[in-house]
């Protein structure tokens, strides 16, 4: 298994290094996006004389920088490719290989992230210089951020595969994934830090899995959580990962029985 992963990683890196420039451009501009809501919140803070709740402009900047890091490292996008593979029957040869198709996606994600993380640095530096930062994190925040990020990435990855596996039944998954992407847009901490979601929205956010993918690790990274809260978040994250993993097992088995390839 480890040897298979090493071989896939090497191949992935060689493949990716062909298109260095376009990869770099892609990342540079896609990480510009968090600045959009950051600028909006700073405008709101200015309209209120400097703060929204406990957030100053620098706190917003710190939050959105943390969120950019988390989004970059924890986001994965299997559903779009998987739909294509099922629709075109290209899944068939992958199923014949000794390795479960999910491992190819794992490797692809790792390669992409390692390859593009360099592009993050100038963007984050630019954001920090423009809006200022306000670091309140303790060393243990950073230490516990690592498992939180890994759990968030695993949760997003597995959740994406559950959605993608619906391709076995409906062949056009993009509407389904758009639906979940937009729910995530509201509740994962992208439009607002979780602490600023008003009333019921905040309750819903903590009841759904999306906040545990991005918003929660970002809050830990910027040092906004107490030690007890952080441990509780990690437990909830782990529970969601376990539940989603079980769901994927069920959906994948049922789906493979449904899969008929092209022409069958």
């Amino acid at each position, binding site marked *: 298994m480890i040897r298979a992963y090493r071989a896939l990683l090497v191949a992935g890196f060689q493949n990716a290094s062909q298109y260095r420039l376009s990869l770099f451009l892609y990342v540079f501009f896609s990480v510009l996006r968090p*600045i959009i809501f950051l600028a909006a919140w700073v405008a709101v803070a200015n*309209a209120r004389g400097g703060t929204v*709740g406990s957030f100053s402009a620098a706190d917003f900047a710190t939050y959105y920088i943390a969120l950019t890091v988390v989004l970059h490292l924890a986001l994965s996008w299997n559903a779009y490719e998987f739909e294509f593979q099922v629709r075109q029957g290209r899944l068939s040869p992958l199923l014949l290989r000794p390795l479960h198709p999910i491992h190819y996606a794992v490797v692809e994600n790792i390669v992409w992230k390692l390859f593009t993380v360099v592009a993050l640095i100038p963007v984050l530096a630019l954001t920090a210089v423009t809006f200022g930062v306000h670091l309140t994190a303790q060393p243990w925040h950073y230490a516990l951020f690592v498992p939180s990020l890994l759990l968030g990435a695993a949760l997003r990855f597995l959740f994406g595969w559950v959605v993608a596996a619906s391709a076995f039944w409906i062949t056009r998954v993009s509407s389904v994934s758009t639906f979940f992407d937009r729910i995530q847009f*509201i509740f994962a901490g992208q439009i607002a830090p979780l602490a600023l979601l008003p009333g019921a929205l905040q309750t819903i956010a903590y009841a759904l899995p999306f906040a545990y993918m991005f918003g929660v690790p970002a809050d830990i990274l910027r040092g906004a959580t107490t030690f007890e809260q952080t441990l509780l978040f990690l437990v909830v994250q782990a529970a969601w990962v376990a539940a989603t993993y079980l769901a994927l097992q069920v959906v994948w088995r049922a789906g493979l029985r449904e899969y008929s390839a092209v022409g069958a």
Partner: protein
Amino acid sequence: MTRYLRLLAIFFRTEVQFELAYRVNFIAELFSLVMIVATSVAAVLVLFVYTPTMNGWTLAQMLVLLGVFYIVQGIGELAFTPSFERFMEHVRMGTLDFILLKPASSQFLVSLRHFRISSVGQVALGLGVVGAGLIQIAATISLADVVSFAVALACGLVLVYTLLLVLSTLAFWFVRVENLLVVYQAFLDAARFPVDIYPGWLRVTLSTVIPIGVAVTVPAQAVAGKLEPAGLASIVAVAVAAWLFAGWFWRFGLRSYTGASA
């Protein structure tokens, strides 16, 4: 001119026929659009929970701006990006030859050949959001505001088109440029808020270097009663300059095209 309008009508009709062959997919895409617009409105409402105005924009004015954003993005998706995506494919595969041989302007053929019909739904939703904002400020709008809105919107669409044309023309030198369209998407996405909320360097970029921010902000300013005559004059000037530059750049790039077997 009438010849080009006739061609446009034919292209559009074939795309409608194509789209109608996949009706369930069409409905699913409309559903996605409703979801996207609804969540964006929700995001603006969350921001306005904490303040009555953002940089001088009220909630009603901000809704008008968001609606204009979806109209501009929707027309881009409907009429421009599908053709430019295929154009990049043509350059890479060398099949652009077939287009260059046709007896019509090559710029016209690569930029207005394909349409994504479901984006009509996005334009309609954008109009709906504009309407939701306008209801609250309708009393303050004069005929002059409506005219300057129409002029500014037309200029905004010219800016979107010319940016896409310039980015696509780069394909003649760099071949693999699909990722360059991300530049367009990322900068256009920034236009969902008024340009003036952004920090200096980004505001300058969005209004001069890549003048996509003003494509949405200026029409919305016209309806919100925030547009000075000078502002309208400058977007007209920028649009004309962008149009001339993009046309020249396209012809310049075309000279570098080598075809499939060269």
